């Protein structure tokens, strides 16, 4: 009995177990970029390689029909076993996303090992140069783009949206997805944020909001980050404000009858820069507040027009309509209903602090 038991133990200790995954045998991709179309997919895996105490990254290319096949192909070109369970960022080229997005995500949801807090971005053209630049900037493209996208969330351009949230939105009829959209600045050869790409259903619509519009969208969604800076010119002098708090009130009372939606926003802001220095005057202040409210309203309405034209509802109005206005909701496809809504936006900017100057 003891002999048998010790034999069994020896076998276990020497061979390891069925599900053992020795960390040293795996190369963990820090980020993946997907190019091409479904059935003809090209992917680039950025893999940190350790030589001694130094970390450097290599890019491994994979080709195939599906996301999984691409990985299997790339695995054959990787020194260790390729694993994507610690993926920081997924990048997709804009061309790729003009087909159903979910088909590229399924594999990431299906495997239990995978991480769901991975961030996602979209690039203009192939993803390869983006990964190369990331690797040369930071030795590790994953961390580079992870910080990059988190930075966007901080400055309220794009609220942090991880894989899980993306899946929820993709499956939700009442809301459409947006993704941060990057391009490469030719002169400096660095990736820059072009804006936020708009999705209609599960497909990239081909339209995107620029950075300023994206920031307004974030305010509309009430998901602002730490630094939400907006600059306008007031009477020839630039004024910068930082939005501190957003109070939103959506009025859907008239929706059933006339298809009109009123959204009012109270913004509590701090003045960051205003060289006229005359905010001690109550009247002046009110004037400025009014001016800012008006400008914000104009820009927002312009942005909403873009949204309605692309039939994309990233604000999530549809969720509210589905919950409380089933009559409107059941009329047809939400994208069509959304594009025909009359959306009225009102702002009420309140200056709270002005720094240590007036």
């Amino acid at each position: 009995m003891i002999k048998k038991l010790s034999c069994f133990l020896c076998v276990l200790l020497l061979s390891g177990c069925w599900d053992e995954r020795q960390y040293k045998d795996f190369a963990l991709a820090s980020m993946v970029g997907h190019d091409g179309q479904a059935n003809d997919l090209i992917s680039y895996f950025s893999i940190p390689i350790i030589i001694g105490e130094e970390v450097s990254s290599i890019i491994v290319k994979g080709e195939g029909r599906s996301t999984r096949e691409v990985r299997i192909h790339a695995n054959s070109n990787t020194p260790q076993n390729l694993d994507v369970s610690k993926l920081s960022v997924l990048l997709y080229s804009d061309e790729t996303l003009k087909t159903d997005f979910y088909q590229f995500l399924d594999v990431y949801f299906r495997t239990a090992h995978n991480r769901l807090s991975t961030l996602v971005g979209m690039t203009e053209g192939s993803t390869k140069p983006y990964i190369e630049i990331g690797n040369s900037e930071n030795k590790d493209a994953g961390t580079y783009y992870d910080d990059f996208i988190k930075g966007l969330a901080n400055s309220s351009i794009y609220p942090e949206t991880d894989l899980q949230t993306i899946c929820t939105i993709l499956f939700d009829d009442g809301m459409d997805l947006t993704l941060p959209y990057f391009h490469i600045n030719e002169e400096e050869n660095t990736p820059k944020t072009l804006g936020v790409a708009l999705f209609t259903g599960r497909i990239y619509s081909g339209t995107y909001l620029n950075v300023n519009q994206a920031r307004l969208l974030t305010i509309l969604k009430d998901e602002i980050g730490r630094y939400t800076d907006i600059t306008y010119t007031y009477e020839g002098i630039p004024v910068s404000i930082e939005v501190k708090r957003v109070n939103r009130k959506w009025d859907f009372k008239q929706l059933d009858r006339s298809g009109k939606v009123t959204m009012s926003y109270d913004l509590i802001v701090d003045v960051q820069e205003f060289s006229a220095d005359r905010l001690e005057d109550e009247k002046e202040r009110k004037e400025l507040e009014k001016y800012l409210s008006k400008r914000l309203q104009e820009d927002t309405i312009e942005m909403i027009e873009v949204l309605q034209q692309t039939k994309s509802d990233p604000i999530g109005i549809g969720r509210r309509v589905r919950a409380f206005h089933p009559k409107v909701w059941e009329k047809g496809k939400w994208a069509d209903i959304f594009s025909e809504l009359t959306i009225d936006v009102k702002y009420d900017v309140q200056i709270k602090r002005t720094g240590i100057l007036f």
Partner: protein
Amino acid sequence: MKFSLTKNQFFVFLFIVQTGSISIAFQSPIIKAAQQDAWIVFIVALVIQFFILVLFEKYYKHFVMNRLLRWIYSIYIMLILVLFVANIQKSLAVWVFQNTPPYVIVAIIVATSLYANMSRPESVVNLGVLLVPLFPLIFFFLFLATPDLIWTNLFPMGNISGKEWVNGLKEANLAFVGTEMYLIYRGYLLNTEKIFMKTIGKYILFIGSCYLITILFTIMFFSLAEIAIVPEPIVYILKSQEVQFIERIDLFFIIIWMMWSVITVIYLVFTVVLIFNMKKTKKGIRSVIGIHLLLFIIPLIIIWKDFFKVGNEILMYGYFVFALIIPFLVILVNTWRSKNDQKT
């Protein structure tokens, strides 16, 4: 085997048996059946459950098991056990052990149960204490998901059809598998302990709010279409959470839930041992080993032949038969008999 329970031990026992078998998987079917109103359906099921327990408490003295009933209940519990062990293996295979052969996992679970059931009965019944500190931990991790919840998912409220109601209630009852343990164990309570309606109310409130939180979180976290493709939503919610020092909280949850399940297995086996009053004699030990052998072989057959669907159906209807119909029949007959006895 003479032993007795305190009130707390009794309810902890009941709680673990009821939650252990099903807690990670019952949300999905009930939401599939009753849409966003699943939680309302569940509350109704909870109220029904409360009245069942109150009735049980009132008439438990009339629930006397004869030889036939002993056999019937043991077989029923063995059925739950076997399906349950198979389900544990299935969940583990999906989340952690993709390549490990089923017989290894089942053998380990069964061996643990064997070790526990070879010990003193008081040790077995007290095992639940191990879970007490882990329980708040799960909810702490779950509450990390609060910012990601979409409250509008709960609406529109209350417009599901009658058929959805019935299906929903049927699925909701799955969460209360193990109610009949109340009758089996009620007799072992210390004579000094009294159970009032308030006690049962408290218990129902506790177990109900635990379940309800998981249901509400599931509805609010996922969109309805997504729930259809996620079989174990709670684990999935935890998987998507990120804490500073650790990732894949789902793995820890699965581990905690594993502990939970193994203890439930031990409890259920213990119940069979108790029903037959197996003593620490050679014969008793042999039958305990026999039970475990069965527990090892049958789940493997279920896994091998993929009988899960049939099994779950049996479980659902079995609940009606064994937790509702048979106990009340027995109680009725015995009440009638005792009345007759009094007359004569």
